[in-house]
């Protein structure tokens, strides 16, 4: 049982070493690389130990700090350590010499420590302790990188503190209701609880996890928070950080409360807790995706998309059927793979050109083909088109929603997908296609250390796309461990008997189609390669000074259609709450008027009021 302690102690060691050597970047770099490599190895090797329990003999309020390995947290541990290793490899060169990167690796280690603790914990108290550490380290991680990062990190912090306070209330309320913090015990005693109290408790837990995983009404912290910090952190955060909230939802919705108790919370007819949660997930899919259309900054666009994709995961879980839940869980892995790939590509563009402003870039395919390929694989995955992995999990979710009889949630998913396709094309078009501006003539492709993670993720994205069975095995085991029906999976899609998805055949036919086209292509004469200025522009002469990309207001027409419906309700409510708190605190502040006479009158009024009140009590 030393694996879990090694994992956590190693991350702490990482934090310590990085704090000691905060002066020299080189030492920090290699320490982090080695430690994260070991961590990834450990989390892979952890598989046979699934099911074992491990405790630190330290008692808080009658509860030991306990850890246990289940299939679910093995799945998430793999993702966390894997992605952190890739981020470290990528940032070896990316972060060199950047201003404000002294504590780059320390914060990364702290965050991993928090996340590993959260997913490995076996009881509510350890869960909450590491949850606090995680939310503080996410705040620290978000505030590296300049002044705007501080403001957006502060906004995240306000949400995170509210989430952890609600979680604390939930943890201790369930402790007082069930008498113990342990998940298994609570799951056992769940039936004894009255219906309204179960509903209240479930809402508390699900709200705090929804804030962390940026569900619709409480998502406004994510876009600024993720895009103002270093781009490698944007990749890391949108890849795995918000998915810990999803882990919490899976754990509590199915592990602790169990699908039976959740389904008992019916409101009217078919509308039950899961349906209401589905509606929030549906809104999370539609609104952020269409806001992404308006963004001019690549990182913000992707951050809005990671909110949108979170909606897909949640709607999968909310559908409740074996297929839907498998789709939701699989989408967590898929999303992590392709969003990190996309943001690595954006990072390499930023590394070379120094900007991620979509209005200023263009034509980089001529200079950075590998990053283009990476972004292409990523956006095909994000849009959910067949050969890549995004499609498989979306197919599961769609099929679960349709067969489960949720037409309007399915409609929301469709609208979300189309919004994704549009904004995703804008990303690759504005950055890599079109005329190459003069100032980027000497841009080169990024070095090997940055290309390696991109190649790995490309293989993962395509591999999972063609052979989804690789991950479906683990997900089926998770479903069984959570007491749900396992999804009938085959190596390349759904088992033939029960469904209609065979990704191998789809990809094979696609390759066949391309081969046929290639033959037709060869029938014609040889192609003549021409430069970018040899272009038809109404007979005008194109040259450096007039090189024009159609980047700005790429979807102007659609924006005219959508604008009347964009009321920015969320921003207005947030400003409202902020001004109310300010007004209340301003009013309360004025109680202390500074006049000693009024203070005296306060004392006497308090005296009289106490007498009146206590007269009834005694």
């Amino acid at each position, binding site marked *: 049982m030393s694996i879990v302690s090694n994992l956590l102690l190693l991350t702490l060691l990482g934090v310590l070493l990085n704090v000691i050597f905060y002066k020299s970047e080189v030492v920090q770099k290699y320490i982090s690389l080695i430690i994260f490599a070991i961590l990834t190895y450990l989390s892979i090797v952890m598989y046979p130990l699934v099911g074992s329990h491990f405790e630190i003999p330290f008692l808080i309020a009658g509860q030991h700090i306990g850890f246990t390995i289940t299939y679910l947290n093995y799945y998430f541990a793999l993702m966390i350590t894997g992605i952190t290793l890739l981020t470290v490899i990528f940032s070896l060169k990316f972060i060199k010499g950047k201003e404000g990167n002294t504590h780059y690796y320390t914060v990364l280690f702290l965050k991993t420590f928090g996340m590993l603790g959260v997913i490995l914990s076996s009881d509510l108290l350890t869960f909450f302790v590491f949850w606090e550490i995680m939310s503080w380290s996410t705040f620290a991680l978000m505030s590296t990188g300049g002044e705007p990062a501080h403001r957006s990190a502060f906004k995240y912090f306000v949400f995170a503190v509210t989430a952890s306070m609600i979680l604390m209330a939930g943890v201790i309320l369930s402790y007082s209701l069930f008498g113990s913090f342990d998940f298994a015990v609570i799951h056992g005693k769940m039936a004894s609880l009255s219906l309204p109290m179960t509903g209240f408790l479930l809402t508390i837990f699900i709200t705090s996890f929804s804030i962390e995983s940026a569900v619709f009404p409480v998502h406004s912290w994510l876009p600024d928070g993720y895009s103002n910090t270093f781009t490698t952190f944007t990749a890391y955060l949108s890849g795995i950080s918000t998915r810990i909230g999803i882990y919490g939802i899976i754990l509590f919705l199915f592990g602790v409360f169990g699908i039976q108790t959740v389904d008992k919370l019916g409101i009217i007819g078919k509308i039950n807790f899961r349906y209401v949660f589905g509606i929030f997930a549906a809104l999370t899919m539609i609104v952020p995706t269409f806001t992404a259309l308006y963004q001019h900054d690549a990182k913000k666009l992707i951050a809005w998309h990671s909110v949108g994709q979170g909606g897909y995961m949640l709607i999968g879980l909310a559908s409740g059927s074996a297929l839907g839940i498998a789709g939701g869980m699989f989408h967590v892995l898929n999303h992590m793979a392709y969003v990190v790939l996309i943001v690595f590509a954006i990072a390499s563009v930023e590394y070379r050109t120094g900007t991620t402003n979509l209005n200023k870039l263009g034509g980089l395919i001529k200079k950075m083909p590998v990053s283009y390929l990476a972004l292409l694989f990523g956006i095909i995955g994000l849009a959910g088109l067949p050969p890549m992995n995004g499609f498989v999990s979306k197919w599961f979710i769609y099929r679960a929603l349709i067969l489960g009889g949720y037409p309007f949630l399915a409609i929301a998913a469709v609208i979300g997908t189309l919004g994704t396709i549009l904004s995703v094309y804008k990303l690759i078009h504005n950055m890599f296609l079109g005329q190459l501006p003069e100032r980027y003539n000497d841009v080169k492709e990024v070095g090997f250390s940055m290309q390696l993670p991109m190649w790995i993720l490309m293989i993962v994205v395509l591999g999972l796309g063609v052979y989804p069975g690789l991950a479906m095995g683990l997900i089926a085991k998770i479903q069984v461990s959570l007491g749900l029906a396992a999804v009938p999976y085959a190596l390349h899609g759904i088992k033939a008997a029960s469904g209609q998805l065979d990704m191998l055949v789809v990809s094979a036919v696609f390759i066949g189609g391309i081969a046929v086209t290639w033959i037709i292509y060869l029938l014609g004469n040889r192609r003549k390669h021409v430069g970018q200025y040899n272009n038809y522009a109404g007979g005008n002469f194109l040259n450096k000074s007039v090189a024009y990309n159609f980047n700005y207001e790429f979807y102007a027409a659609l924006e005219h259609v959508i604008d009347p419906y964009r009321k920015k309700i969320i921003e207005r409510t947030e400003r409202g709450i902020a001004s109310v708190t300010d007004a209340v605190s301003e009013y309360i502040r004025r109680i202390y008027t*500074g006049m000693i006479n009024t203070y005296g009158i306060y004392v006497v009024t308090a005296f009289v009021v106490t007498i009146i009140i206590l007269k009834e009590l005694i």
Partner: protein
Amino acid sequence: MNGILSVSTVLNTASAGLIVLGLYIVFTQKNLIKMVIGLDLADTGVNVLLVSTGYIKGNTAPIFSKAGLQVSQMVDPVPQALVLTSIVIGFGVSALALALIIRLYQKTGTLDTSKIRGLKW
């Protein structure tokens, strides 16, 4: 005790009156020195109340000056000891208050509490 005018009720009402009067002065007067006077008034009121607790009708002062005086004829001495300390404390606090008010006057040039409102909110 003939009628309502027993000694203890008189003393109690007197002390209550004094306390209320003293506090009224502290709350309404703007001038700091008047407030200190008000505090003293309230203090004396409390002392009166304290002394009155020890009163036993018909007994005399608890001093063993005359020979044949028995303890049972004496008034309870404990509250008087308390009042002594209380008066000393009251005196100390008022002296300190006035000293501070003088230094405050040197600094702010006024005794009016509505003007001395540097620290508020």
